[in-house]
């Protein structure tokens, strides 16, 4: 029984069957990659997990509890964090503040009227956020306005924000797209390290095979809304159908 159990999920957009009978089981403390052609329904599947979309049918269980019908913030408080395909950060806030907000959410829960003490006096949160910035290698940008960072930096910030929440399940939607090779490698290392240190489960969508193969323990290939195969990286690499439909010559 995995920490995440997706059973028989269907999702239609008008005439388009974006997800058709998806079953997926992610084992605790593993990295599970979901790959597949563009428009296969990968992001849609993630949307169903975090409460952005509600599947037409099927069930999604996290740690034995259903997430369906819960609001996004409730699902997050259950322990699921998500990095988006296009960076979602607090553009008007500084990098440090961006990092602090998830720390607050972790510490105080979904709402806390913490209106009198100053932010500066919240030492625990500050330290945690600073430490995360150092981990993400962006401590020198801490006072920068998040919106004026380059795109790769935004993405790294977002990953950092999700990590600082210490989620139990981390969902990554193309986390290294547009990231420089050096940072991609850093990120891979960081994810590996974090996974080992803290009992964290990761589901990752990626088109960069380097990332997929160096991180994941299992891979599900999604095509036209349905899982094509699920297997270990080695087997996927050699799978003829996957090569043909997705990887192309370059793999």
């Amino acid at each position: 029984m995995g920490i995440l159990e997706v059973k028989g999920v269907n999702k239609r957009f008008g005439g388009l069957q974006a997800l058709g009978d998806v079953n997926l089981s992610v084992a605790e403390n593993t990295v599970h990659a979901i790959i597949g052609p563009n428009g296969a329904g990968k992001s849609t599947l993630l949307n169903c997990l975090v409460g952005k979309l509600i599947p037409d049918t099927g069930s999604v269980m996290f740690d034995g509890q259903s997430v369906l019908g819960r609001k996004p913030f409730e699902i997050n408080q259950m322990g699921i964090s998500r990095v988006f395909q296009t960076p979602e950060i607090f553009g008007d806030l500084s990098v440090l503040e961006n990092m602090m907000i998830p720390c607050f959410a972790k510490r105080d829960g979904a709402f806390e009227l913490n209106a009198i003490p100053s932010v500066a006096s919240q030492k625990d949160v500050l330290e945690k956020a600073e430490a995360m910035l150092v981990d993400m290698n962006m401590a020198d940008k801490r006072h920068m306005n998040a919106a004026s960072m380059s795109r790769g930096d935004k993405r790294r910030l977002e990953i950092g924000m999700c990590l600082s929440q210490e989620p139990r399940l981390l969902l990554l939607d193309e986390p290294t797209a547009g990231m420089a090779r050096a940072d991609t490698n850093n990120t891979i290392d960081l994810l590996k390290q974090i996974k080992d240190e803290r009992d964290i489960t990761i589901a990752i969508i990626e088109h960069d095979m380097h990332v997929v193969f160096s991180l994941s323990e299992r891979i599900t290939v999604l095509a036209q809304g349905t899982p094509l195969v699920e297997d270990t990286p080695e087997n996927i690499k050699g799978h003829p159908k996957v090569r043909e439909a997705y990887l192309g010559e370059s793999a």
Partner: protein
Amino acid sequence: MNVKPDFSKNANMATTAPAFLSVWDMHAYYGESYIVQGISFNVHEGEILALLGRNGAGKTSTLRAIARLDDPQVSHGEIWLDHKPLHNMSSYEAATVGLGLVPEDRRIIAGLTVEENLQLAQIAPPIGWSIERLYELFPRLGERRKQEGVTLSGGEQQMLAIARALARDIKVLLLDEPYEGLAPVIVDEIEKTLIHIKEQGMTTVIVEQNAVRALELADRAVILDTGGIVFDGSASEVLENEELRAEYLAI
């Protein structure tokens, strides 16, 4: 650090072939931040130039400056396209004389369908590929022509952004991370397309984090770091130069 290219040693600047797109000593600011710090390079007709560098090096800013967008503001320098002074033009004028930019965050216009996004590109002359021909290139778009552009999957949006640029009759195509978020097979497709249009005389500048792929495609490469040019030479030279690759591209 502000490294100005040494023009005397630069084989490229000295070449006799006339430059088609020429950037000369360009400086650009975001408000107070000095980002593009004196950049000069030439692109010849029918050539593919890879513009490389780490996150935040200033690649996007350079492309945006060439495309004459409001931000960053060019404070000094000249940009010539086919003997026309782009530096005196606004972005729509630059577009009418043949400049096309595929922006890094795709910029699919909300509220318009796929087809309308393409039609929009064909309102102002000159008009390039027909919409039908674009659908042939990207069948996925054809299938989704009535869908709202922003609900496309990430990769589909990227296709639309490229298609939109080709829908106009352009002389120079500026691509900002065109492969980002695309499945490997599609990357192969697009690469083929780029080679195809290059054969028809298109001049291309490509910014890409997947440096190896870009360099294999490109004729020449320019490497940026902190807003200045640190290398300008042939693409194969970079592929061969370990040191350069390690220092600026981490590959």
